[in-house]
């Protein structure tokens, strides 16, 4: 074994930087899952009957389903009856402004470096912060309101805009879609709702920070974004979580709907606790994200930087229904320690002249296992559909693994589908070259990996790109070197 490898391994043992637990008084449901709990959640949230019915349908469906076995990830069976399905921080009083935010919550955000303060607002970022499944702070609403943009917590949307929610909820990811999405449909706690009216270009990046907090609480976020004809929105989602002993299940659902000529750009930086060196205590991140290009010439782009979680199971997808619609997927997934990621995308071409681009960069270090799983499906109706996929893997050290599972189904002969794949190692020669120029190994690896991901970072909004780069640096420092 060489020094470089040894050094990488030492660094792999350093601690998760943001592992702290804030002490919010939780208002929680008893552990376990049954119809009563589903009703409890709905009642707690004062929901209309139709939503309760929808939840119950999902719950009943879920009891007949089994967790998928096909992902290339391994974990002990989850005891769904041991989890708590509802917990909410108690706001001390109704919030008129950020100054009134629970100081505990405020300091948690500060530690994370998430600025909910005026500077951030001036920088043009409206933040809808989610702590323990319930939105506690929403900013910049007035400005958005003037434009007719709705950006609020999911619960609030259910109250204030029930027709919109009812129309689109489950329209992209049906309640019966898959094991985890169905579970989410039954017990989802809160999340974000965003509606951009016809012809409106959202003037700022909308962003949500997620945080899993109360011990042993599975978190079930629900996000719904609807972009009407000719509108545009860029949405940022970023998160990190405190250190934990038990595995925490996170099964979110994100649905995007883009009408004619509308564009949705959805960017994620995910940094949940990956577990200790043995993989204990990390987050299980089983997410269903899907967008529908419903109208002609609409466009949906997913950009994700995934550095956290013990297990990631996530395939942000696009259904290209409108003619000339465009779907994009840009992804960086980093696994180290004992992290496992099975991630990729699905591009379902239905409309004519639809186009999709997939660029995936997987980085494996430590004992990380990284799988790319992608489906490109060209339906019979999709005349002249085009897809380009590029999947690059990078290995750091000897004990990690990278796997690629591209699936291509073409039912229309006019389609063009291209797939490129590469695997490279962060070579001892590259590290030595940097060392020889005075750069230490930790910085060298960070630099090499960031270089490898550059194409993806270019897709992120400026501010986020910087954060993502830092995050990758931190993750490497804490996990690779």
């Amino acid at each position, binding site marked *: 074994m060489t020094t470089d490898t040894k050094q990488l391994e030492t660094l792999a043992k350093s601690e998760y930087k943001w592992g702290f637990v804030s002490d919010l008084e939780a208002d929680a449901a008893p552990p376990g899952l049954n119809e009563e709990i589903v009703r409890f959640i709905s009642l707690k949230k004062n929901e209309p009957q139709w939503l309760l019915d929808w939840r119950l349908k999902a719950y009943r469906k879920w009891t007949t389903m089994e967790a998928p076995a096909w992902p290339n990830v391994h974990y002990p069976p989850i005891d769904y009856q041991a989890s708590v399905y509802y917990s909410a921080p108690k706001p001390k009083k109704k919030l008129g402004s950020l100054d009134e935010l629970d100081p505990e919550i405020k300091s948690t955000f500060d530690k994370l470096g998430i600025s909910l303060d005026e500077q951030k607002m001036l920088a043009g970022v409206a933040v809808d912060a989610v702590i323990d499944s319930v939105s506690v702070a929403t900013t910049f609403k007035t400005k958005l309101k003037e434009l007719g943009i709705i950006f609020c917590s999911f619960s609030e949307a259910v109250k204030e805009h029930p027709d919109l929610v009812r129309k689109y909820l489950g329209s992209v990811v049906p309640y019966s879609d898959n094991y985890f999405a169905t579970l989410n449909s039954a017990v989802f706690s809160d999340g974000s709702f965003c509606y951009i009216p016809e012809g409106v270009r959202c003037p700022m990046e909308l962003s949500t920070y997620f945080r899993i907090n109360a011990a042993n609480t599975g978190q079930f976020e629900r996000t719904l974004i609807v972009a009407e004809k000719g509108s545009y929105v860029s949405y940022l989602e970023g998160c990190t979580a405190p250190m934990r002993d038990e595995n925490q299940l996170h099964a979110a659902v994100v649905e995007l709907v883009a009408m004619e000529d509308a564009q949705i750009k959805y960017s994620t930086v995910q940094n949940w606790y990956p577990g200790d060196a043995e993989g204990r205590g990390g987050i299980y991140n089983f997410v269903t994200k899907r967008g529908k290009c419903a109208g002609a010439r609409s466009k949906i782009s997913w950009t994700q930087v995934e550095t956290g979680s013990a297990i990631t199971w996530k395939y942000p997808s696009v259904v290209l229904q409108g003619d000339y619609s465009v779907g994009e997927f840009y992804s960086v997934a980093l696994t180290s320690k004992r992290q496992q990621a099975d991630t990729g995308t699905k591009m379902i071409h239905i409309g004519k002249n639809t186009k999709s681009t997939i660029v995936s960069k997987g980085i494996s270090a430590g004992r990380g296992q990284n799988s790319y799983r992608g489906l490109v499906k060209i339906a019979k109706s999709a005349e002249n559909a085009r897809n380009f996929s590029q999947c690059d893997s990078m290995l750091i050290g000897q004990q990690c693994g990278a796997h690629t599972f591209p699936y291509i189904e073409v039912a229309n002969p006019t389609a063009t589908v291209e797939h490129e794949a590469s695997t490279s190692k962060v070579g001892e020669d590259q590290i030595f070259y*940097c060392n*020889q120029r*005075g750069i230490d190994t930790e910085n060298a690896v960070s630099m090499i990996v960031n270089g490898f991901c550059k194409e993806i970072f270019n897709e992120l909004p400026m501010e986020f790109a910087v954060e993502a780069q830092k995050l990758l640096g931190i993750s490497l420092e804490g996990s690779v070197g």
Partner: protein
Amino acid sequence: MLEIKNLHARVEGKEILKGLNLSIQAGEVHAIMGPNGSGKSTLAQVLCGREEYEVTAGTVTYAGKDLLEMDPEVRAREGIFLAFQYPVEIPGVGNTYFLRTALNAIRAHRGLEELDAMDFLELTREKMKLLKMDESLLRRSVNEGFSGGEKKRNEIFQMAVLDPKLAILDETDSGLDIDALRIVSDGVNSLRGKDRAVLVVTHYQRLLEYIVPDFVHVLAGGRIVRSGGKELALELEAKGYAWVDDLAAKTGAR
């Protein structure tokens, strides 16, 4: 400045350097020549601390310090620079960014403050002129897609910016066209000075017409089998290495 005594080194269990002695004083330029596979690059890598090359015996003293004790990046920061025989590509990492990171790491080690992007640009502009570097190369990723000659020139450009005390050039001349050879040589010569030393590894006498060495050594069978002045290079060019092999055999270096 550099004192190598009885250096033995092996790679993959195979002994390559077998008792090499070499002494370089500040202000001198030394050339090392020798047949393919004789251990020239191995020597260069060992001096720079490459892990795969295991030193099994001998000592190397650099500026009064035990060189073999230092990590590779520390050696670099202490002023050792290697122009690689095969420069490495680092996709996605900007040439300028890379070089500025390197320079600032070296400056920090020497207690100097960091250069910001503007100051750095100033510095590089001058060196670029010296090496007639095309600005577009700086905007590209480190060595990625560079032609063989461009890579070599980039090495010397980096050297000029990093301003080393001991520069080791491993076959920098191979792959360079005639004009580039002259430009690169000018770059190296501009670095010559009483506080600095240069160690040039080459197969060709031509380079030594531009970078005139004070000493020429022949490396064969893992040892320096012969040393002389610059005329030795001419002699080698005329006679080839056959006689060196004899010499190596006689001295028991094989």
